[in-house]
């Protein structure tokens, strides 16, 4: 069985930071997971090693994260579809890089060297965010509007059955 993990990253009480978590919750609400026994939907406020450890048993991983870019050029709510290679380059998403331990790609590289089976396929959705410095359970309007859109994109890409 091709096990897939859909993992929303971020802090759900930090305005836009939790956009990934909210997309994951939306998917959980919409999708009939009973007909997808190979599919797990979860959330995490973690990066680096902890995130790598969370994805180890899966063949395919869908990461949803906040994308915090230069405030002058950012378009809040803009959705990006990225590959793992993009995280390796100069523009990682918010939680794929936890400087407290190590970045996700470094952690995955380390896991591979150590002989762990790492996922084969990575699907990454990143949403440009505006406010990640203020505590609130409510995202800014443009980011809030992106949540159902990202959920829909993932549901279509993975051909998930709705409830």
């Amino acid at each position, binding site marked *: 069985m091709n096990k897939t993990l859909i993992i929303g990253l971020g*802090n759900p009480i930090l305005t836009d930071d939790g956009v990934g978590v909210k997309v994951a919750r939306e998917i959980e609400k919409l999708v009939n997971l009973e007909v997808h026994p190979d599919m797990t939907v979860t959330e995490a406020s*973690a990066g680096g090693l902890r995130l790598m450890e969370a994805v180890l048993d899966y063949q395919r991983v869908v990461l949803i994260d906040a994308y915090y870019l230069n405030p002058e050029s950012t378009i809040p709510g803009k959705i990006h579809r990225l590959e793992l290679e993009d995280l390796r380059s100069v523009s990682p998403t918010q939680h794929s890089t936890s*400087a407290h331990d190590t970045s996700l790609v470094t952690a995955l590289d380390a896991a591979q*060297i150590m002989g762990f089976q790492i996922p084969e396929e990575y699907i990454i959705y990143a949403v440009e965010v505006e406010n990640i410095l203020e505590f609130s359970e409510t995202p800014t309007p443009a980011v809030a509007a992106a949540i159902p859109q990202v959920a829909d994109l993932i549901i279509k890409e993975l051909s998930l059955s709705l409830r």
Partner: protein
Amino acid sequence: MERITIDPITRLEGHGKIEIFLNEEGNVKNAYLQIPELRGFEQFSIGRPAEEMPRITNRICGVCPEAHHMAATKALDALFGVEPSSAVKKLRELFYSSFYVTDHTVHFYALGGPDFVLGPDSDPAERNILGVIRKVGVDIGIQVIECRKRNHEVIKMLGGRGVHPVAGLPGGWSKSMTKEEHELILEYAKQNIDFALFSLKIFDDIVLANQAYVDLIVSDAFTHQTYYMGTVDEKNQINFYDGLIRVVGPDGAELVKYPAKDYAKHIAERVEPWSYLKFPYLKAVGWKGFVDGADSGVYCATPLSRLNAADGMATPKAQEHYERFYETLGSKKTNGRYAPVHHRLATHWARLIELLYAAERMQELAQDPEITDPDVRPVITSIPTEGIGSVEAPRGTLTHHYKTDENGILTDVNLIVGTTNNNAPIAMSIKKAAEGLIKNGEVSEGLLNQVEMAFRNYDPCMSCATHSLPGQMPLEIQIRDKDGKLVNRLSQYVDQP
């Protein structure tokens, strides 16, 4: 005033940068670690039921949610006026010890260790866990991952959820330990002790056996004489979960020892015009600026500080290593206790001794017959008003302070997070490292590395302050003249597009 900016810091949680201010002659005047401040936590919390705080505050931070969970739970004990039973205390401390094992492990192998394992002059792109594995071997990486895995399992079993625990209740813990869990934890604790001893052996072989590294540790560039804070038990031995907060001076003499609820009587916060950070200091000594010595109220709260503030470790193997630590670093015993070690880079070693203590403590608690007591949920009968709870977070003493109305609805919230305690010492360490390498506006090779090493030993966690790291961007120094014009720029990696 000229200004140098190092932005952002690699390998530290959250977005931060280093600002170095130069004087007219081009020498270092001030330095600090700048952390964007998260706003509105107090407003977010006010109006909510206090008992939600262990589950809300553990969301502040993705690095040490367990520490916030525990400080919040202890604040609720005080708020609702219910003293936890000894079984509850033991269960919580067991959970907390397991968390310490994971946290200190990450720091040594992924963050601080690489500076030593690979050497302070190695390529920064290699100074990470990958580099450690390449140099020391795949087996070590596997041991690190296995250690984290088993302790995350314990955290999940006892805390009710992985990553963000939910078990803390006023005066209690939401679930007791099953027989199967107990057996597993006993086995895991034993493995943790072996792992801690193995880690100390690595430190011995790689760091202590290398005279150049030992010289670096004891060098003046990384030495500061300050006060030290840590929580101690009734024997003045380190305890992470509970006890009195003890502060000792640079000579090791006790300045104060107080219960967490009295924190405001002993700690004040200094505000500087050039930084929005608050710099806590000891009221009894007073603020004399960013300076060393017994007359300066600057204190430090780190693994090294905890060792210095205590008279010893409460477990046998950790005590052996504690004695060896002080003997090796040339500390003399007076009045039955070792004089403090002031070498900041020794914090990495102190952290491993704490790792061993946490593992041994976990085993002791797991072997305690009371640990499986099913009666861990007391009934609350009192009317709440105010409560303060504190624990030793890996990065320093963590205090939560709540006030509520008679219905338990929050009216006031104040948190002093671990890293905040160390704001002044971190600034001093960065300044000292920079002073050695910036003379009359000339910046020498190695500034980035030395400055990184100077603050990394504090393990500053900025995600209590923010999560806003845009990515692993290069460590960067910007040098500006006194008019703010950019005159020079240094960077470890290629520029961002």
